[in-house]
């Protein structure tokens, strides 16, 4: 039987406000346990929440960036359940009136096609603390530093049809969130987390199959692998005549499989009701317009502009706008070197290759945009050849001097003195009589070999165009 996959994603993003959603505590990552927990965060009796409006601005910023409806009146609700790292015994979230309503994301797939994936809603809620079960000899430790940090939960429509689409959606979301500067969105640190709802059904069936939810996956790669393995599992069960149990599962990366966490059929009744300690948050068109006016250029618009302004392929432009920092980096290189095409090649291949190889962020790169631009300028003005430039690039990793100093010190300057080049050419002609004869007999392509010989002799420094010209002249 042919199956199709239906996926919906719930993505939690930690909003990068300076203080928590309802208290003044710092949200800085990595502090000692419970040093960032105020009396409100510890849910001391009598304490009350005060809404951090910066979280609202960030949520609205996200909403307008994906063209979503913005809730002019957001209402907070209490979601009730008991857990030691949930100090109040309820989580404050938005149930019926979220700040962000329906919107959509357009993702580009590997075959170059585009797909629009609907966003159902995005609501603001508070994070829970952390339970630490090790190191306490049969007891559990509770760290409330994270409790009350603002989250934006972004819920997709069940319109994602494959692991590839899911990852494309997540990456697009990640890019936009980073562009908007509303979250670090670092999956490994938990500032972006993903729950995946997966079901399958026979192709042509309109009813959705029973779904499972895979909780808290912390990398794009694991999202992809978890979906593939879960789809496989469901397919095997259904093909054996079995039934999928609606439940929460977890992905075990070591075994590359999902395992059951708990059954949703005995799910909690969260007894939601409007949070009486907070007033509804009311915003007007003016507020929304002001947030919109402050949006940066978003990745799709930037990609179109790059393709047009710098005459790049959609693909290359897409690579360069994959992060706001990279796009900015590229634009500096392109404008300072005055060669957009060469700049695109160097940034998307050499620079990104370097970052990937070392697992660096752009900020970690020892080669700043200005230095790379200078390197390209020296290729253009023929101070060095493209090949020598690779050597200079390598040197720039350890040597912080400017590009010209490196070229000078290493004696890499291209030889353009025709007298000197003539010496290389003469030597090569005399050392390779066979090839010279072949050339004279009309086998033009031999010239490449001879140029290569000259380059080798000059240790790459001779200007290849000049070598080529002089060789042809002398062999006439």
């Amino acid at each position: 039987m042919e199956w199709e996959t239906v996926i919906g994603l719930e993505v939690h993003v930690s909003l990068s406000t300076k203080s928590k959603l309802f208290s003044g505590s710092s949200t800085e990552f990595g502090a000692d346990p419970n040093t960032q927990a105020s009396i409100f965060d510890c849910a001391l009796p009598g304490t009350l929440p005060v809404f951090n409006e910066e979280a609202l601005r960030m949520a609205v910023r996200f909403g307008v960036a994906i063209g979503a409806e913005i809730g002019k009146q957001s209402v907070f609700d209490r979601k009730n359940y008991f857990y030691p790292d949930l100090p109040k015994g309820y989580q404050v979230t938005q149930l019926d009136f979220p700040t962000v309503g329906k919107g959509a994301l357009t993702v580009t797939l590997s075959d170059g096609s585009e797909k629009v994936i609907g966003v159902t809603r995005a609501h603001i809620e508070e994070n829970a603390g952390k339970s630490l079960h090790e190191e306490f000899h049969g007891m559990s430790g509770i760290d409330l530093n994270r409790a009350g940090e603002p989250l934006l939960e972004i819920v997709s429509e069940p319109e994602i049809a494959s692991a590839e689409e899911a990852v494309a959606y997540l990456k697009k979301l990640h890019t936009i969130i980073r562009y908007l500067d509303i979250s670090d969105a670092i999956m490994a640190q938990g500032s972006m987390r993903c729950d995946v709802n997966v079901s399958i059904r026979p192709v042509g069936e309109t009813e959705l199959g029973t779904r499972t939810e895979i909780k808290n996956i912390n990398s794009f790669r694991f999202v992809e692998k978890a979906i593939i393995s879960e789809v496989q599992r469901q397919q095997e069960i259904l093909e054996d005549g079995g039934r999928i149990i609606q439940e929460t599962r977890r992905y075990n990366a070591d075994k590359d499989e999902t395992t059951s966490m708990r059954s949703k059929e005995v799910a909690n009744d969260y007894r939601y009701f409007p949070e009486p300690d907070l007033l509804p948050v009311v915003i007007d068109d003016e507020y929304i317009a002001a947030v919109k006016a402050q949006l940066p250029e978003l990745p799709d618009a930037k990609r179109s502009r790059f393709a047009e302004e710098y005459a790049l392929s959609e693909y290359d432009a897409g690579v360069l706008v994959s992060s706001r920092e990279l796009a900015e980096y590229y634009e500096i290189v392109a404008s300072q070197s005055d060669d957009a095409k060469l700049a695109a090649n160097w940034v998307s291949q050499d620079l990104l290759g370097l970052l990937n190889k070392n697992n660096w962020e752009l900020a970690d790169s020892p080669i700043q945009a200005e230095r790379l631009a200078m390197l390209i300028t020296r290729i253009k003005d023929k101070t060095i050849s493209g090949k020598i430039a690779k050597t200079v690039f390598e040197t720039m990793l350890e040597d912080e001097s400017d590009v010209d100093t490196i070229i000078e010190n290493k004696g890499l300057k291209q030889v353009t003195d025709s007298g000197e080049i003539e010496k290389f050419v003469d030597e090569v002609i005399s050392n390779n009589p066979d090839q010279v004869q072949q050339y004279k007999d009309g086998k033009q392509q031999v010239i490449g070999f001879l140029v290569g010989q000259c380059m080798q002799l000059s240790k790459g420094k001779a200007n290849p165009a000049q070598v080529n010209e002089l060789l042809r002249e002398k062999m006439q």
Partner: protein
Amino acid sequence: MINSTVAEISAALKAGDISSVEITQAYLNRIAKLNGELNAYITVCEESALEQAAAADAGRSAGNTSPLLGIPIAHKDIFCTKDILTTCGSRMLHNFVSPYNATVVERFNDAGTVLLGKTNMDEFAMGSSNETSFFGDVKNPWNTECVPGGSSGGSAAAVAADLCAMATGTDTGGSIRQPAAFCGITGFKPSYGRVSRWGMIAFASSLDQAGPITKSAEDAALMLNAMVGLDEKDSTSIDRPAEDFTASLNQPLKGLRIGVPKQHFAQGLSMEVEEAVRNALAEYEKLGATIKEVDLTNSHLSVSAYYVVAPAEASANLSRFDGVRYGYRCEDPVDLEDMYKRTRSEGFGEEVKRRIMIGTYALSAGYYDAYYRKAQKIRRLIKDDFDRAFEEVDVIIGPTSPHTAFKLGSKSDPVSMYLEDIYTIAVNLAGLPAASIPVGVANGLPMGMQIIGAYFDEAKILNVAHQFQQHTDWHKQKPGPIASNEGEA
């Protein structure tokens, strides 16, 4: 002097006739004599009270002229007080020492008051008789076989028996007004949002409001002056221009339009209370007021709506008492679930558990629309009734409670206890201000009259109450001798 009003003590302090240390010591002496019998205080702060009194006296010498400077006060044990036990009348918090002050406490500290101690109350403010406290019943100073009312029963008894000059209370469904009526004193519940709830342990967040419990309407105005005002720590607190509530106390009442709700004089109201309130209304007519019947059509729904909304909010508000971070924790829990179950079973009393269960049920999937949502709709209808009435009248007057204080232990059925607040609850549902002032004594027990005002019309209510007290003496009636009794300053 300890049986004087705040206004009188303030004048005496200002004139130098008495020092804050002297009056504080006098109250402490009286507490030492009578608290054993009345059980009005859970905690008495003898040492720090005398220190604060000395500081107030020093402040006065240095030129501080705050009207409440050096006045001894008692706070209901629902207000968090830094470094002082704050129990909320519960075993759950029997050992909880708050690391911070409630805004109300902070404001009285700023005004220079002297904290005598923390008063007894129904557990988590859930009760109308002060019999649900983990720290034992409070006795009514007028008759120690009777309840003082609740939940602010300790504060009411303390004010009535001169165990303090004034006290704070909180009112969710009548918890200031009903004990004020039962103890023959003045109680005032401000408009919702007037007084910050920061540091006031939540029972039902959308209904809770702190207010003064005093010996006169003028004293209530003095206390309100210190209590009200925007607090950025409470998102439901309201920004209003500063107001001196004593300023309009003496306005004549000629032309005042009084509304009398027919529903508040219907079946269930005792004859003596009805007579006392009617007499008071006649007094107002003499002062130039006109009386008009008003129709609060939906008032019969208020108790039912209240007992959905308040327990629903309480069920969530009390979830934080889980034994994890502070307060009571059961002994030797075997696992997390055991800790939760036993901590909450042992830490909460019967009435609190009953309300948590009612509230949990009302919010459950499948019941939410039938209960919580419907109750919120009724709340709107009740508010509309008041809004309509206030188009025609300035204040609404009726009995505070259908009868005088009842005997301790006489009401074992929870529903009959819930009906105690039949006249007061609608006011909380509508968020309005209201006072209870004494209007008579029957069979040795005082009776109260409720004055309800429009939203933010506190000054009008106080004016109406004060004028009555200028022309009558009911607020000066005192309980007869209490047992060992009479330590005068």
